[in-house]
């Protein structure tokens, strides 16, 4: 599904990622952890084609990211869902309109849009808020809208960058449960987080990054290796 072969990425001579080699299979749940500046976001950006590697190769669904033309990047992204810390929602639009956006972009028919958006909103428990202005809903609800938008076109891969960064413990738990449900449906989930609670609850494969290098690729979180988690 996702393969990194000795990938290095520089930003102004500073190596954000160094010699990273990893493989993520279909249906896996991967938790990227590490301190700020470890390279978590860069790794995700490389997967969705916002950046190209300076060295090495990346294959995402058998497509070489380094050789992907800029005009093909949108089509790669349509197979993915994104959940970000700052939500990246359109505040002046309704919850429905925000969630429908990926489908509208793809030219999905009107009835199909309504059906899929309803499904996604039900999955995150926000069907009753479909007509609300996004700016008017709470932070937790905004993150759920973001998750609904990410899953509305049934993505093969779900990428999340600090999805609980702005949320309290209770809301974090709600989001974790949603991610678990999405993963249970067979979606490959890659989640970058600082949050110990997320790492403990998600019970996925943990990849620790530090200064752009893979420090450890531990497999599933357990009490015995919990001390090595951030």
């Amino acid at each position, binding site marked *: 599904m996702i393969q990194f072969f000795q990938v290095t990425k520089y930003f102004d001579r500073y190596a954000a990622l160094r010699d990273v080699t990893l493989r993520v299979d279909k249906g896996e749940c991967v938790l990227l952890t590490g301190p700020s500046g470890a390279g978590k976001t860069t790794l995700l950006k490389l997967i969705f084609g916002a950046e190209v590697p300076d060295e090495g190769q990346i294959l995402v669904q058998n497509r070489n990211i380094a050789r992907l033309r*800029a005009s093909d990047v*949108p089509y*790669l*992204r349509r197979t993915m869902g*994104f959940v970000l810390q700052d939500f*990246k*929602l359109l505040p002046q639009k309704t919850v429905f309109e925000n969630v429908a*956006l990926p489908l509208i972009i793809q030219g999905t*028919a009107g009835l199909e849009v309504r059906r899929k958006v309803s499904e996604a909103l039900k999955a995150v428990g926000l069907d009753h808020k479909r007509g609300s202005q996004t700016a008017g809903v709470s932070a937790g609800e905004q993150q759920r809208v973001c998750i609904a*938008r990410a899953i509305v076109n049934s993505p093969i891969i779900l990428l999340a960058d600090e999805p609980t960064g702005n949320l309290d413990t209770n809301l974090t738990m709600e989001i974790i449960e949603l991610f678990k449900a999405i993963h249970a449906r067979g979606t490959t989930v890659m989640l970058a987080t600082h949050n110990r609670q997320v790492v403990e609850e998600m019970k996925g494969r943990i990849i620790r990054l530090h200064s752009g290098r893979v420090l450890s690729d531990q497999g599933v979180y357990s009490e015995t290796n919990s001390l090595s988690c951030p």
Partner: protein
Amino acid sequence: MRRILYLVRETVANIWVNRMSVAIGVVTTAFTIACFGVFFLLYWNLKNLAGSLQDEIQVMVYLEPDTSKVMVSGVRRHLEGEHAVASVAFISEQEAVKDFHQQFPEESSLLDGMGDTPLPASFVVTLAPGFQSSELVEGLAERVRGVPGVEFVRYSRDWIDTLGLFVSYLEIGALVIGLILAVATVTIIANTIRLSFYARKKEIEILRLIGATRSFIAVPYVVEGAFLGVVGGGLSLALLKGGFEVFRFELDASGWFQGLDSVIAFFPFQISILLVVTGFLLGSASSLLSVYSLLRSRA
């Protein structure tokens, strides 16, 4: 359908959010196109004037005194055999005197005491279309001068040629000024679109993240640019028409250039539409340039 609806709504939203800069863009575009329009209108009228004068050019072939009827017929045959000649009209010596008295009644006494036929008989030659250039008229005159019975040949080409030269300079001027003003219009519209783009940068970032193509993102901005160009072009047309009517009214009231008011005309419908189309094309092109340069990165 939903996609088209979305793009229409986004375009309207873009224009509404940036209504101030759009209004400024429309007004500046209108004035810029109107500046070119004034120059083009002047060129258009002078070109038409030169064209109508060129169409009316005639060559006068004066005959020697007491030319026999046979010789006159010979001259007529020669003239009618020329490709450059559209029609020939004969004015006898008596008709010439009659015409002189009719055209210059005050100066009639000038011919007193000069006999019955003081003016020569002549042929008035109207040139065929496409044979009105200096070289061709000069060639015709040379050939006719050698025909027996012809005393001299006269035609008033020079000042028409000067007018033609002036019009051709004006044509180059219109082209240069048009080009400069087109660049100015493109810059104005491109900057307006750029402002509109920056105002919605966050939204564009989100659209790109969720898989929107460059074309999908660009469409509302290109339509906005086209709208700006069309409205600017339409407004410039209204300004020009208004200005033209005021000018014609003032010209009539002043009494100067009497007779010119029938020659002076506003652009025909097709040219008027062309001004709006120019606005549309400039608007679309500048917004395309602007948006595609801003969407070049992959992020």
